């Protein structure tokens, strides 16, 4: 943890964050999980609360392109890192991976209750950024932290392969 940044932000009591390309300033304690900053302070509710212990992946966001669990990422530790949520992944400034994942998810009707799917899509997009052609084993390894109680796993796997094909085209 970069101590200097922590101290500076705690003192001002205002934490500056870069969310989906926008500069945001929030008045929260530095030890507030990013999840609750996104949901309760900024109103980006696409990122979900499932377990609060980084055990389910429903709260997955990107931090400088890496998939992280926002329930265990403290607001004071984010610093200058660029945060992307589901709203940013598929919004107006969507990355090509984000667009491909969303298109695949819709084409294969992956969702059921849908509650975990923001997290699934964030993890899938992060995987495809690093690995253009993941195997089933690669997918299982990268997606193991994303629980789906509807058990849409079968389709998550197929949709990631489909998204990879879309990115190739």
């Amino acid at each position, binding site marked *: 943890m970069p101590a200097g940044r922590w101290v500076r932000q705690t003192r001002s009591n205002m934490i500056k964050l870069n969310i989906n390309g926008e500069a945001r300033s929030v008045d929260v304690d530095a030890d507030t999980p990013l999840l609750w900053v996104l949901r309760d302070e900024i109103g980006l*509710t696409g990122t979900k609360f499932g377990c*609060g*212990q980084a055990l389910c992946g429903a709260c997955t966001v990107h931090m400088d392109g890496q998939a992280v669990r926002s329930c265990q990422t403290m607001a004071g530790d984010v610093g200058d890192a660029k945060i992307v949520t589901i709203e940013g992944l*598929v919004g107006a400034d969507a990355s090509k991976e984000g667009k491909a994942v969303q298109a695949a998810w819709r084409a294969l009707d992956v969702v059921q209750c849908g509650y975990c799917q923001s997290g699934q*899509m964030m993890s899938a997009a992060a995987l495809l950024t690093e690995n253009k052609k993941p195997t089933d084993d690669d997918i299982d390894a990268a997606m193991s932290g*994303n629980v789906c109680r509807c058990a849409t*796993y079968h389709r998550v796997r197929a949709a990631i392969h489909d998204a990879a094909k879309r990115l190739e085209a």
Partner: protein
Amino acid sequence: MTAHTKIPAAAKSVDLSRRGFLAVAGGAGLGLMVGLKVDPAAAQGAAGGVVQFNPFVKVAPDGAITVVVKHLDMGQGPTTGLATLIAEEMDADWSQMRTEFAPADGNLYANLAFKAQGTGGSTAMANSWEQYRTAGATARAVLVKAAADKWQVAQGEIVVDKGVLTHPSGKRGTYGEFAEAASKIPAPTGMAQETPYKDVAKFKLIGKEGLHRIDNDPKTDGTAIYTQDVKLPGMLVAAVAHSPRFGGKVKSFDDAEAKKVKGVERVVQIPSGVAVLAKSTWAAFKGRDALKVEWDFSAAESRGSDELLAMAKDAVSKPGVATATNTGDAEGALKGAAKVIEADYAFPYLAHAPMEPLNCVVDLKKDRAHLIYAAQFQAIDQPTVAALTGLKPEQVTIETVWAGGSFGRRAVPSADYVTEAVMIAKAIDGAAPVKLVWTREDDTKAGYYRPFYAHKVRAAIGADGMPIAWHHRVAGQSIFSGTALEAMAVKDGVDETSVEGASNLAYAVPNLKVELTTLKVGVPVLWWRSVGHTHTAHVVETMIDELAYAAGKDPVEYRLALLKDKPRHTAALKLAAEKSGWTAGAKLEKGKGRGVSVHESFNTMVAQVVDVSIQKDGSIKVDRVVAAVDCGVVINPDVVRAQIEGGVGFGLGAALRNAITLKEGEVEQANFDTYEPLRIEDMPKVEVHMVKSEQKPSGVGEPGVPPLAPALANAIFSATGERVRDLPLGDRKFKSA
């Protein structure tokens, strides 16, 4: 809840005609009108001039057709299914369909299987099949009549395709253009009855591939609103400290530290614990964790799982207190039988663990209460809230939003979590809207669970290897006893949900006795995706497999011989066997196993063939599941596939490693590390095949679950020679035979 459970309600069954709807909704002044003008501000996603043609169909001037969905969508897809029925009968284009959830109104939106408003028992499509098609067909009829009147042509000459009305003369229009005029057409008496549904052969959407889920977009861009996402002006978030033991009460509490947490506004005692109200969710959680509560356990359940299981095992070693089925003379036939197989089984408590932990928003005012949440059982919740607040039921309004899973947990006879939210709102005199939020730990520890059960079966085969007697004992808690629904659901001491799937054994066994001993335990229990079938199917389908092996017969052929008068079971079983490449007597390579099962639940037959590999460390990997389902007419084949795939995954997670256990009354599991759901690496390949059928549709939300565990157990037996009679598998290691 089971489909055959009839729940009495103040609500009369819905009158399907528009006249009936208007009599309810509009009063005498509107009696001559076909349509009902809806307040544009209240109509979702449409500009002014939205016309509601019946409780289920609204048409906007831009042509958007909004289907009012009376069932909770917890992922099982009724929103897509019900919109399909309306779109089909209106010859609409799928892209013009919209949906909204129905308000709490037992007169208009009862589940016709329960005669009360609620979702469960895999009934959503089955009970709506005629009702929603009628709604679509009658709306179409008046819209076409309005066009015919305007164009001065005969109604029969107008063709509707993809929402566009055309006449051979070249005239062309949309539903949106005629909605206003159609709303003024006098309704001929009996019009609904005279309007025929479409012939099955003419379906363009029902049963067709390629119709995508209607909730795909909001669920893949973060905009779908769940209870957790609701924010009202001035709203406080509440977290509750519950008793660590069921039945414990607050003795005293110290909230000094909790009140120091930034954002915490109030701390209140309620019957179920101590609630901390804060401006944000995180503050509520922190405040709750800072509470010091002393509990009074004098009336609490303080036994542990070992003790409870021993009690159940003891119960099945003795004659049951009640008899569910008694055909022939099972005990007599067993006495003289040459070959008897006896086996004991045990099943643990299971948590539903939906991805979205339980929550509920309540805005309580002097003269009304407005609730926003994923309402699954309005017929219970609305009168419960009325009783708690002293309001009349009609002063309690319920707005339903998407559910982040349920598996039965959001429909509760005691309305537990809704009650808790209302009690918090009452404790602050409705000073602010309240959102009750449970953490994952609350969700795991605070109940309700699939009950634990013990079974014992003694079965005998004759000289020809076929079963001659089956004596089955079940012991466990009753889901319905002690609830407001007990009188309807418990007959002669038998709660049907304790024995369903066993008491109505599908196999032709001449002497059958099924006994039940209901145990009293102070742990709250509830229906859990497929209810009694979650354990009875395991016992029946593994025991029949034992008998087949004892008789030296192929497990598929043995079952088929016993299902001669069960054509739907037979068709599903044959289809699964064929598609999986099942070959009688085939020898699999060492370390591989294959097992089969077939089971009826909620009027749907599902057969599954499971392939497993025994891993080097002795654990089990499920490689493939081939399922065949007969659910009558298939409304959306891909939703059927998705539900069976999901049922397989749900059943597999529980079979592999899920159990809620108690130590001195306290639940030992807390989060997804100690109650770990199936993960992607555990998920097998799943193939789903559908039996062609013209029968009325039956459910698919639950029936995929029951066959999985027994087919898995039978596959393990085929690879190892070891029987799996207790679930979950947990750390059990196997050796290839």
